[in-house]
């Protein structure tokens, strides 16, 4: 067994007091493909960013070739031979392949001019040594995602990177492109490079990875040989949490169908999504980040209308092409990103809360200040928003209180169908419990709630039924009784061909 090339020892990382990595260890050997596995928020990305010097750890040590090192900035780790290829590719779209490979390090002549001949010659050599076939003069924007990845890998190797970190490299590739990528990865492995490979597709990991390290809630779980661990066991290591009774969904009488969605499709984003949501019911939508859940919610709400499919609201066919129409039909959407989509940060609480309902607080376009203020005050009070007063600006509040303001805003529209996208992401435990209690109460009043959540315990604790999405499709549906974390995780990570359970 060869000595590790990179070793992370008990790395701890905190963001504004919250620990996102707790004494995580990770060791990487030359000539291996090492998978990093975990749910959303398990700390994979943060760990990668510690390796690449984007984040500095608050505790623990990094050893490279047995020497202790500290990376203060991304270029420091790059110089040490660690390169990362992220999900969002970072090529310069208007530069060509060769220029992209050597960007920032272009060979120059003695006069300081660009030495184009050397540039193309070296790029050519590099690509052919990797067995890649790319037109050197093609602009990056004309390349497919797979080809762009190739260029990124070539760029990394051109600076003699010995450690390559690939974050979900296969997520937007076709099967043949994946095969091509794996061929390249194996070739690099044979040359002695060490590769950290992040993917949610377990099948792929069995195909390409030698070892796997599992993270859960920011802690290290285990490192195993890939060949000696079963799929079920892997999933258990990933989720292995006990569900406390933190999430009290009270029993409610389930009423009529409030929202019915049939074969909803947005080309290239999600397809044939169908489900029913009843009054008094909480329908959980589980899946990994990027599975298309948020897009389905936005489509239903008219932000980006679907290309085909049918939506029925309370038994009547509805064509919703703008949020205003959705609001008029009794829908409300509490979006995932509060700062970006939920709030107008420089506005005060009153203006924020009244925004979707300004029409009802005004007469012939003139605002009725008192009516608006009273309604906003009542909504804020009901949600127990903590602020100095209702004239405080939204951006001055904490995350949990901002979420309460967004909830207050949408509840003041008196919706009959409420869509919540990651309602408790990134907020404190107390507020979280309050929001869960509120959801339960609202369902009790007959509201139909669609809850998108990446947190399995939340999904399982709150939902009457659970829908699982994977790569733009619904892959499974469970009742409260049937669902287990393992089943949900399995449906969220399996490749489509492996089984369409619907």
């Amino acid at each position, binding site marked *: 067994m060869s000595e590790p090339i990179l070793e992370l020892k008990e790395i701890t990382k905190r963001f504004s007091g919250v620990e996102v990595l707790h004494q995580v260890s990770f060791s990487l050997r030359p000539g291996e493909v090492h998978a990093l596995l975990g749910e959303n928020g398990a700390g994979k990305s943060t760990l990668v960013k510690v390796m690449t010097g984007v984040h500095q750890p608050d505790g623990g040590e990094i050893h490279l070739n047995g020497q202790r090192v500290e990376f203060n900035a991304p270029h420091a780790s790059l110089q040490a031979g660690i390169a990362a290829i992220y999900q969002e590719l970072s090529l310069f779209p208007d530069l060509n392949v060769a220029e992209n490979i050597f960007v920032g390090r272009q060979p120059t002549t003695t006069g300081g001019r660009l030495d184009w001949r050397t540039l193309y010659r070296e790029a050519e050599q590099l690509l052919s040594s990797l067995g890649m076939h790319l037109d050197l003069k093609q602009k990056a924007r004309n390349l497919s995602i797979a080809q762009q990845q190739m260029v990124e890998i070539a760029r990394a190797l051109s600076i003699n990177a010995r450690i390559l970190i690939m974050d979900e490299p296969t997520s937007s590739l076709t099967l043949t492109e994946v095969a091509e990528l794996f061929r390249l990865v194996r070739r690099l492995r044979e040359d002695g490079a060490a590769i950290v490979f992040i993917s949610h597709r377990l099948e792929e990991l069995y195909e390409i990875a030698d070892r796997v390290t599992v993270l859960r809630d920011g802690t290290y779980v285990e490192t195993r040989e890939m060949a000696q661990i079963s799929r079920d066991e892997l999933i258990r290591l990933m989720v292995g949490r006990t569900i406390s009774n933190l999430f009290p969904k009270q029993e409610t009488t389930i009423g009529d169908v409030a929202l019915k969605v049939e074969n909803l499709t947005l080309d290239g984003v999600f397809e044939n999504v169908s489900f029913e949501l009843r009054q008094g019911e909480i329908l959980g939508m589980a899946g990994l980040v990027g599975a298309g859940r948020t897009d389905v919610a936005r489509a239903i709400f008219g932000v980006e209308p679907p290309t085909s499919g049918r939506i029925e609201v309370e038994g009547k066919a509805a064509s919703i092409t703008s*949020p205003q129409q959705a609001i008029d039909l009794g829908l409300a959407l509490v979006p995932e990103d509060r700062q970006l989509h939920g709030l107008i940060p420089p506005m005060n609480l009153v203006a924020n809360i009244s*925004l979707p309902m300004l029409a009802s607080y005004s007469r012939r376009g003139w*605002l009725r200040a008192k009516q608006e203020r009273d309604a906003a005050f009542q909504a804020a009070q009901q949600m127990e928003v903590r602020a100095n007063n209702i004239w405080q600006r939204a951006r001055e509040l904490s995350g949990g209180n901002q979420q309460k303001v967004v909830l207050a805003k949408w509840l003041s529209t008196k919706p009959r169908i409420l869509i919540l996208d990651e309602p408790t992401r990134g907020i404190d435990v107390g507020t979280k419990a309050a929001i869960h209690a509120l959801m339960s109460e609202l369902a009790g009043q007959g509201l139909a709630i669609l809850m998108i959540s990446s947190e399995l315990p939340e999904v399982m604790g709150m939902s009457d039924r659970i829908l699982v999405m994977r790569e733009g499709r619904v892959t499974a549906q469970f009742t409260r009784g049937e669902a287990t974390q393992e089943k949900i995780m399995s449906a969220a990570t399996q490749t489509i061909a492996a089984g369409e359970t619907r």
Partner: protein
Amino acid sequence: MSAQHPPARRNNLLTLVARYREAGIAIFILILAVLVTLRAPAFLTLNNFRDILLNISILSIVALAQTMVIITKGIDLSVGSIIGLVAMMVAFVFKASPEFPVVLSLPLGMLLGATLGAFNGLIISYGRVPPIIATLGTLSIYRGLVFFYSQGTWINSFELPAAFKQLSKGTPLGLPNMVIIAILFALAVYYFLNHTRTGRNIYAVGSNAEAAQMAGIPRQRIIFLVYVLTGLAAGLAAVLWVSRFESAQTNTALGFELQTVAASVVGGVSISGGVGTVPGVLLGALLLGMIDNSLPLLRISPFWQLALQGLLILTAVVVDNLILRRSQRRGRR
């Protein structure tokens, strides 16, 4: 609402400036007034003050409209050309038919201006052309139309009816009509921005277009509207301009758009959108007007006048950025 105290925040100078932006400008104006008066006592006379008000009336009207555009993250560079074109058209109307009712000249100018503004609005909101490019284009087009329309000729004072010339300067209510019109216009904009649904929507679209859209606000219609309103204000300004200066020339209000932007920005309107108040812009216009007025009194060369104006704009923008960066840092916390 529970009485919770927020975490202690440092109340440094920047926070104060951010909170009391208008007061800051007002204090600056007072200091300037005192300094100028010490050197040139002629500054502090009723007559001079009246002069200043007359001079900034037109600027205030257009700057307030420009402010609405800037609040939506846009800019309207064509206002100078709109004034030029509408001024020429209105002047031609009076030249051709001196009996044209003077009172009607105001709605006529506003209608013409609004039409030109609507063209800007269409290109920007529905054609999705960036505002700076779209209005740079119409700046040239509208100015070109002035030449086309007038065949390069001017309309001079003797060609305009006396009653029309008195429209801006007459003082039946004690103050010149023009100043009264500007005050009424400012009040209208103030109520529009603060007490109507549409006004609220303008701020919402400007500070977070995505969130505004999700809340059901028709974003494109709002953007279209602010350009129409700016055209309308420029049309009103054009009528006052011809009446006051008693002529319409091919270069009327040439470069005026920059002054309107200057007044807004100096008055605390943020170029990154969503922020701006009517009192702030009025103070901004007053400050610019005072500098224009006082430097000749102090016998300082006009070169310094421009340089000082530029310096003020830069200061305002830098302060603005510091505030923005600070609030973003807080937002991320």
